[in-house]
């Protein structure tokens, strides 16, 4: 089963590389879709079964469609405008690589600070269904953030529709 996870990680990283470097933004967003799918599989292997489904529903079914619509709506001069990546790439590349290395090192220290789980506990964690537990948590300790997010969603919908509305 580790092979599937490895494949998913390779898919994620490879398509994220294309998202970063492909000059055509339509292709970049299509490969972003593959990145989302790869991340969903990684979630699945980390025992986050509901989250994997939500990832596909929200990102692939929602965000990607929205981005594709936006690209198609704004980029009607297709070939001229889509290829717009900056020419100066060296400094951003070095900068983002430095950020990535720093992040990995910082998290690595955190890894060392926290006690690891036993293999049996990991096995058990992966095998337990999480949907009901997430539901319990959303009704328990996370009730207030959950409702706050509802209000955020309401505001986002009203605001976004107001912004996008033609005069």
């Amino acid at each position, binding site marked *: 089963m580790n092979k599937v996870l490895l494949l998913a990680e390779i898919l994620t990283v490879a398509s994220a590389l294309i998202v970063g470097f492909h000059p055509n933004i339509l292709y970049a967003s299509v490969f972003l*879709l593959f990145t989302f799918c790869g991340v*969903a599989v990684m979630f699945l292997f980390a025992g986050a079964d*509901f989250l994997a489904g939500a990832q596909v529903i929200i990102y*692939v*079914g929602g965000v990607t*469609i929205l981005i*594709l619509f936006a690209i198609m709506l704004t980029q009607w001069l297709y070939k001229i405008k889509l290829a717009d990546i900056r020419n100066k790439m060296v400094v951003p590349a070095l900068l983002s690589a430095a950020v990535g290395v720093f992040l990995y090192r910082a998290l690595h220290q955190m890894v060392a600070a926290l006690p690891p789980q036993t293999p049996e506990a990991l096995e058990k964690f992966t095998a337990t*269904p999480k*949907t009901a537990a997430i539901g319990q948590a959303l009704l328990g300790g996370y009730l207030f953030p959950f409702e706050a997010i509802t209000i955020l969603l309401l505001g986002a919908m009203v605001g976004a529709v107001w912004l996008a509305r033609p005069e």
Partner: protein
Amino acid sequence: MVQSAQFAHSLEGWFGFLPLWGWAAISAGLVIYMLALPFGGLATYIERKIAADMQDRIGPNRVGPIGIFQFAADAIKMLSKEDFVPKGGDRFLFNLAPLFVVVGSCTAFAVLPLSKYLIGADVNIGVIFLLAVTTLIAPGLLLGSWASENKWSLLGGLRAASQIVSYEIPVALSILPVVLISGSLQIGQIVEQQGWTVFGENPATNHFWNAFHNPFTFFSMFLLFVGGLAETNRIPFDLPEAESELVSGFNTEFSGMRFGLYALGEFCDVFVMSAMVTALYLGGWHIPFLDIEKLGFALPTGLVAFIQFHMFMIKTLLVVFVVMWLRWTLPRLRVDQLMGMCWKGLLPLAFFNVLGTALWMWVFKGQSLMQLLAGHG
């Protein structure tokens, strides 16, 4: 937790000698190549026969007895057609688009409960899996239509994408009452709870078909059916491929087998939608008022699986028949009516049904109409 009896487990139990992942692969291959793709092929023939019957014609009758091999002839024709990408089109996306459609509709077969012992993948997020996998179709149609650089295609693809995503909300919200009732997302468990027998004691969790659990779920079933009809671009919601407006909509530039794959994906999707209605609301594999596993004597598991599979297929194909029947009955909607119906009709009704079901569950302590009648409380 119900004892999970998935296809791979059953095969391993009956035959042995291969590791579980091998049986998993074989079961996936069996379901796709023995059920999904043949259904996609045969459905074209059945649809034409039904159309012919309703219009008092004969329909396809040349290839084989009563034209039954028409689909094979169609497949050969499609395979031997020339195939090209239009000049201004985007070759990569043009090739990618059918992949999305086929993967989206065929992978959904994994969670269909063909029988208690023949569920491809009885995952514990079954319903979410179904919703997640079928969302792949909308980007596929959109990208394919964009890649073919054709105005009809683009308009069709845009209509398809916005229609599919809009109707996904009412579909998901009309699945929600079932989740409220069952307290589980696992489709095998949802179906198992819909059993009911008059010859003996019923377990406390069983509450007959979800469609007759309470009045709200009864309406919810119709919402799910209508939403599914729109998600699969069937008449009266076939605006994305309306012949009289958009030539052939999003698949105008797709020729030969590429078009065949689109058609296949679409028919598989119709089956998935009908199976969803069957499994979630019409009792899935259960024979009404009879539990063949509690007859007093034990049937072999293979036979039980066989009978249950046929029961499931009968129900699903009846729903498919209704879908095809509607095609020759209803006229096509206008695009504003379509969107209005989704956002102003189905969505508030679906919310109403969810709240109604929740209230019913609260008031009657989770009992179904049948349980109340039988005096279980």
